[in-house]
């Protein structure tokens, strides 16, 4: 429940903080509608479209309506996939509007005590601290390896969890050991003639739960002739915070990362998670009110590149022999990689260069899979509806390998396959893991 007093405070902040010019920039042509997953899945409900959400934000600013629960629901149901942005001829920065609106609502809303406690623990206590991320991933590892997982599944205790969470528990990857997570390199040489010097943004989840994928990424960079610097002082990108209305913490993390990657004398900063990349590339917007930091953020973002982009740039797929046993492969775009980082053709070029595979584009590969950060937990009904559509399209390609470029999408694909009973004969992989497999090399980095 949002109290009247809270609503008044929210409305006032909307008037102070929302970018009026950006709201007016939407001329309501509706070109965004066919790109919006929630508009489609809600049966063409304008409340769940980008145009509708912008109209609601503007109406709150104009004082035409109050920021009541329906307004909040409309904003909450948005995936934040930003598929509406590339199709907007007027160039409305929808993502920025949404983030600001969510931040205002969150800052002015008193969450219930349990919600507050969890939010605080997760957003402030966990993600900003890589050592704690390691500890909690380590706990998961203990759970998986100690026999607890088997025990838990046998007792049927998982049935007490909501359907989704129980399935999610099954699809979590086997996590690395504490030692593996602690002993991370800070510098790696190129293999063969050096082409570029790059810095690697490791990410928080990627460097714990998906450590193997990070290792594969670095191995590919080495094979591509890149010398790699991995600054230790970097932290989580802050995306989770930014998207959940915790902007202040996100800003702190942005500053920490900008500092960590400054003065490294590298050609590029490489990421391997679309979700992180898109947040990093928006640091200049996040820090727009601070002139000095904004300039530093622009220097940072200008160097940012997804792993697939640099591999294509240095002709990795032409110089290295890529081969896999025959299989049908399809690709699910990471929304943020595609819509914000504008990387769509590079991953496809790389996959199509692998000998032995049959690449088939799935229908609406550019439509969100419903993962969207923690969306699949907090808005699970809509998320599963979107996922069901996605699985239908994936199945139509007869692919046995679904490739993604972001950890959230990867888990969601696994979840979808588990739900459809496909897990036994099909797999979901991160593109770098697939590419490394195709090189025949191991993810051993030194």
């Amino acid at each position, binding site marked *: 429940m949002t109290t009247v007093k809270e609503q008044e405070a929210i409305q006032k902040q909307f008037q102070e903080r929302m970018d009026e010019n950006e709201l007016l920039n939407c*001329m*309501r042509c*509706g070109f965004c509608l066919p790109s919006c997953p929630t508009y489609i899945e809600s049966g063409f409900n304008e409340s769940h479209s980008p145009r509708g959400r912008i109209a609601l934000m503007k109406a709150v600013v104009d004082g035409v309506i109050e920021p009541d629960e329906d*307004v909040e629901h409309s904003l909450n149901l948005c995936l934040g996939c930003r598929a509406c942005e590339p199709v907007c*001829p007027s160039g409305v920065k929808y993502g920025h509007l949404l983030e600001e609106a969510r931040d205002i609502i969150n800052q002015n809303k008193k969450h219930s005590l349990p919600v507050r406690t969890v939010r605080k623990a997760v957003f402030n206590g966990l993600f900003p601290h890589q050592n704690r991320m390691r500890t909690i991933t380590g706990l998961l590892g203990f759970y998986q390896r100690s026999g607890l997982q088997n025990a838990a599944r046998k007792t049927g205790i998982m049935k007490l969890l909501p359907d989704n969470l129980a399935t999610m528990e099954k699809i979590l990857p086997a996590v690395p050991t504490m030692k593996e997570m602690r002993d991370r390199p800070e510098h790696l040489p190129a293999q063969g003639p050096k082409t570029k010097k790059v810095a690697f943004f490791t990410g928080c989840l990627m460097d714990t739960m998906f450590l193997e994928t990070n290792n594969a990424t670095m191995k590919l960079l080495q094979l591509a002739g890149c010398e790699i610097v991995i600054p230790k002082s970097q932290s989580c990108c802050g995306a989770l915070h930014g998207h959940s209305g915790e902007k202040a913490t996100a800003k702190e993390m942005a500053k920490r990362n900008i500092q960590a990657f400054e003065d490294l004398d590298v050609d590029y900063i490489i990421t391997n998670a679309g979700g992180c990349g898109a947040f990093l590339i928006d640091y200049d917007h996040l820090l727009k009110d601070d002139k000095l930091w904004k300039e530093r953020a622009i220097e940072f973002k200008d160097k940012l590149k997804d792993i697939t982009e640099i591999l294509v740039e240095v002709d990795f797929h032409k110089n290295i022999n890529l081969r896999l046993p025959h299989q049908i492969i399809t690709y699910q775009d990471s929304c943020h990689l595609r819509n914000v980082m504008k990387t769509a053709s590079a991953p496809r070029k790389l996959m199509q260069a692998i000998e032995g595979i049959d690449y088939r584009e799935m229908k609406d590969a550019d439509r969100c899979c419903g993962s969207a950060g923690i969306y699949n937990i907090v808005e699970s009904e809509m998320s599963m509806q979107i996922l069901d559509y996605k699985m239908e399209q994936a199945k139509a390609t007869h692919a046995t390998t679904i490739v993604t470029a972001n950890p959230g999408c990867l888990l969601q694909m696994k979840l979808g396959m588990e739900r459809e009973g496909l897990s036994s004969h099909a797999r979901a992989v991160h593109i770098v893991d697939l590419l490394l497999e195709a090189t025949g090399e191991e993810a051993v980095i030194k």
Partner: protein
Amino acid sequence: MITKEIAQKLTAVVGNENYQDSKAGRLVYSYDATPNFQSLPDAIISPRNTKEIAEVVKICNEYGVPIVPRGSGTNLCGGTCPTEGGIVLLFKHLNKILEIDEENLTVTLQPGVITFDLIQAVEAKGLFYPPDPGSMKISTMGGNINENSGGLRGLKYGVTRDYVMALEIVLANGDIIRTGGKLAKDVAGYDFTRLFVGSEGTLGIITEATLKLIPIPETKKTMLALYQSLEAAAKSVSKIIASKIIPATLEFIDQPTLEVIEAYAQIGLPTDVKAVLLIEQDGPPEIVERDMLKMEEICKQEQAVSVQVAKSEEEAEALRTARRTALSALARLSPTTILEDATVPRSEISKMVNAINDIAEKYNLKICTFGHAGDGNLHPTCPTDARNHEEMERVEQAFAEIFEKAIELGGTITGEHGVGVMKAPYLEWKLGREGIAAMKAVKTALDPNNVMNPGKVFAKDSRKRVVVSK
């Protein structure tokens, strides 16, 4: 106003889940794509079938509740803005293609079908539905029929009106009538089909339509002709048609419009020329080849600085798609974008282009022009700011003068966007007082209680005509 009693009656028909009257729910149906029009409806209702629509209409007619039928809300005349409140009626449950009849070359569908989905469905069977409004990926067929939408292929293939063969309509009294049929010839009584096409929801609710299809053209070619003078481009248009060539597409885009389209689409459009023509021909290969060569020649004679033929279908599609985004891309330039669609006979196109430029200068406004030059249908567009009242006044005066000029050249105030609420004050300029009276007589006969999209087409007050200085 919808009283509790009316709301109960309406929900009894459509079910609670298809009746919505929350503030946020109403807000998002308070507008369409027309700038500066917004008005909250009292409720939004989504009937599940024609019978329910008839029930809903009966209730509204009895209590005098306005009904605004709405597709995807992409129209540009304020046609679906509920200016007098009442209910907004949605077609989300009536969105099926019912039949593609390959023997009679027709398609029968419900109004909620998206235009582009229809085009794709019939093209999969080697058939062709030519009307392709700029918003075709979003707009519904019900909207297209009610607005009589045009598009890029209008010159050769006509507009929505030319493809509607039969309609099912719910009248204001709740009667359900069927007009026309899958018939090449049909003179049984008044041509109600034509009357309802473009009636903007003011006469009844269209609940089903049968459309004419044609065989899909064998080939298509696309080219861009570049000009350093607007007039030269406009003259090429008239000359192509005078040379007895009817191209499939003949679009005009001026430099400021090219710049914003290129900023969005980034497909390498020339931005250093004053205007371009986007020209397409389709049909049998030898005819396409011959016409394209002839048109290239004409363009060059008329001072085109260069003529570029698209090398692939992808390149051609990129050009067409880019052109369709022109209006929304122009919205980048300023907070408010006012667009018109004055239309003149094709032969007068260069006079109209010149007049628009003179008027823009006179009122000290930036006016960008693009449009279906081959149809004589231009879209002069003014990037402005609704918050600047003084400038808005000038914009209004400038457009009034553009309308006046169009009528003087034998044209009309709107070629394809419709009258709606936006152009209602000017309708009398085109029709005369007697014309308005005749149209009103039709409206009153079919909708005596004025519940069908009231406030549209007919204005409370006509605008005084401006005197054009000659």
